[in-house]
């Protein structure tokens, strides 16, 4: 009797499981900010109406310390969604190496679509070391120099865009304005913490700007032991050494830029809606390219920066990758990209964004975002490297020693970082 009972229970459980799997809708995880939830909801509902044969539901990524941590936990627990939109480009190679992502170039229609959306340099950037493409370039937030217009107008002979010399001169004049011996107004502030991702918002965009978008790693070797990286370290070191940037963390209770304690900031387009909401009446600001060395400043060449790209991936737990791709395609066609900008204020990574007539009305309605749209032509993500976090961590350690605490020369700091990265990459081959 007992044996029969156990057998019956096993059959029922097994049957119900397989039935659940068969009817399971595709799951789409989006970021958990209000704009992206609205975006995901709109496009999921549209898909549900048009493709009743391929059920789909969306869900904001579960709460956690970081989305990277949640994704890792879901990969380990094999509970990944079918589609995830908001994958940091630097994480993709690690997952690609672990074979948990679908190579999208094997799906019908992907290659043609991606060639029509992105130029060859972007396609090269997202192609994995094994030659496959595991990510759809989706959205970017270019890092630029935000400046307080009145503060800069009060300085003699300083007109952005900045070269290293004019930026430092602005710092000197602002420091002089303090007068009483205490610095209560600085040229700018950028996070001093040695945590790796903070370098994506100071060292890295400056390095890309100085080097015309050069990579940090080439052929599994450090490629940043060059004059550009050294100049960037020296430039930043001077900002701290001369007390133009504070070493101490500024209180987060009051925004130092709105509070006019700092005149510039390296920041992204997310700042526009924030500033429009909280700025005082009459407060004016502008966005400019990142500061560059003199030679580049006088050449009138476009200035590169870090684009902070977040991309879309399909996990190998997906039972119908072709259908998943067809859904993803709806998110990134012209209509999808326009809605992304309207609902989230973020920019799609597509070519000719600033000149495409389809998007022109949006930029007419939102003129503050135009500099970012122009900058989208000249952005880079991070190199495809499974240990990119550690690469940035090594750079961060040297950054702290050289730039913040002036314990090393820029040459020695960059050389030591490059040597350490070479050892790291050798060990991870």
């Amino acid at each position, binding site marked *: 009797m007992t044996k029969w009972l156990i057998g019956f229970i096993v059959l029922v459980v097994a049957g119900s499981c397989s039935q659940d799997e068969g009817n399971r809708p595709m799951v789409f995880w989006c970021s958990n900010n209000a704009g992206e939830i609205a975006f995901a909801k709109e496009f999921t509902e549209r898909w549900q109406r048009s493709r009743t044969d391929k059920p789909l539901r969306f869900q904001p990524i579960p709460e956690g310390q970081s989305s990277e941590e949640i994704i*890792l936990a879901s*990969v380990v627990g094999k509970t990944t969604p079918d589609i995830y939109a908001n994958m940091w480009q630097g994480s993709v190679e690690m997952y690609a190496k*672990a074979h948990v992502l679908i190579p999208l170039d094997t799906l019908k229609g992907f290659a043609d679509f991606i060639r029509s959306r992105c130029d060859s340099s972007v396609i090269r950037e997202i192609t994995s070391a094994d030659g496959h493409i595991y990510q759809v370039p989706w959205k970017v937030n270019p890092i630029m120099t935000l400046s307080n217009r009145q503060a800069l107008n009060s300085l003699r002979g300083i007109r952005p865009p900045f070269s290293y010399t004019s930026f430092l001169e602005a710092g000197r004049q602002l420091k002089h304005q303090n007068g009483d011996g205490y610095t209560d107004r600085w040229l700018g502030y950028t996070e001093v913490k*040695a945590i790796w991702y903070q370098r994506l918002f100071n060292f890295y965009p400056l390095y890309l700007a100085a080097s015309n978008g050069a990579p940090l790693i080439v052929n599994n070797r450090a490629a940043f032991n060059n004059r550009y990286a050294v100049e960037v370290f020296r430039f930043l070191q001077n900002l701290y050494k001369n007390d133009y940037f504070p070493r*101490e963390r500024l209180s987060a209770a009051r925004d130092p830029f709105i509070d006019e304690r700092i005149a510039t900031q390296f920041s992204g387009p997310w700042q526009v809606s924030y500033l429009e909401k909280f700025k005082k009446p009459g407060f004016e600001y502008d966005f400019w390219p990142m500061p560059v060395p003199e030679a580049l400043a006088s050449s009138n060449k476009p200035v590169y920066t870090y684009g902070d790209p977040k991309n879309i991936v399909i996990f190998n737990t997906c039972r119908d990758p072709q259908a998943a791709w067809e859904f993803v395609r709806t998110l990134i066609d012209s209509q999808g990209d326009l809605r992304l900008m309207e609902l989230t204020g973020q920019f799609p990574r597509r070519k000719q964004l600033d000149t495409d007539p389809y998007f022109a009305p949006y930029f007419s309605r939102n003129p503050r975002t135009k500099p970012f749209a122009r900058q989208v032509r000249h952005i880079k993500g991070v190199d495809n490297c499974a240990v990119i*976090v550690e690469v940035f961590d090594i750079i961060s*350690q040297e950054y*702290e020693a050289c730039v913040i605490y002036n314990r090393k020369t820029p040459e020695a700091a960059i050389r030591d970082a490059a040597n350490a990265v070479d050892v790291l990459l050798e060990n991870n081959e």
Partner: protein
Amino acid sequence: MKKLLPYWLVAPYVVHMLVFVAFPVVFSVVLTFHRWNIISPMEFIGPDNYVRLFKDRLFWQALFNTFRFLLVHIPLQIGIALGLAELLNRTLRGAAFFRAAFFLPVIVSGVVVTILWQQLLSFNSGMLNRLIAGIGLPRVAWLDDPAVAMYSIAIMATWKNVGLYVILFLVGLQTVPPQYYEAADLEGATNWQKFRYITLPMINPTIFTVVVLSTIGGFSLFIEPYIMTEGGPLNSTLSAVMYIYQQAFQYYHMGYSATLGFFFALLILAVVAIQKRYVEQEI
């Protein structure tokens, strides 16, 4: 059935031990010989993790930082706790209030205490620096100066934990028979002599317990630097446990992190064994 009953009764504990203690210990030892990033299959690499450990400059710096912390934290904690316990052991007015007051930080969450102290020690807006600036002295970068940051953390950790050790010492002091002090008074002993030759030897087991608990607690230094300084500036507050955590959960070097953990556990065992040998015999 009756014969099996004892086994059934201990079974939950045995299962708990096997699942949550024995298995992780054995698994972590196995891990020390592998490279594993959680999502890819484990790769056997022999003793490479151990070789790397001895060449890892940052790990040795983290270990040095931890010892630097202990060197300040343990004597400070024992000295203050013993002094306060001595005071509270006398018939003072409001002794019960002070006992509760000293113990209060122990039961407050470590995260809350750390955030409070972070505010207190802030360079620009911290109360301590305002007081210092108020009397015309230059502000101190309590958490931003590599030479000072670890000592600031040691003082904070002492403030947080001292109440527990005050209670332990108080219990120890109350076990000393008063007749010993009466006899010493008759012999004309000074207060210091009574403390040195009666109190200290009599509370020796308590001192040993406090030293061991402080050492183990100090070795596991994590929350304070993790929240206050993130190991900086210039890795001056990077503790060994924090480094092990970074290796495991920031870089996903599970094998190497297990090796560091294993080595660190052996080190704590050795330090406690040395303390047992000397502290117990010396006093």
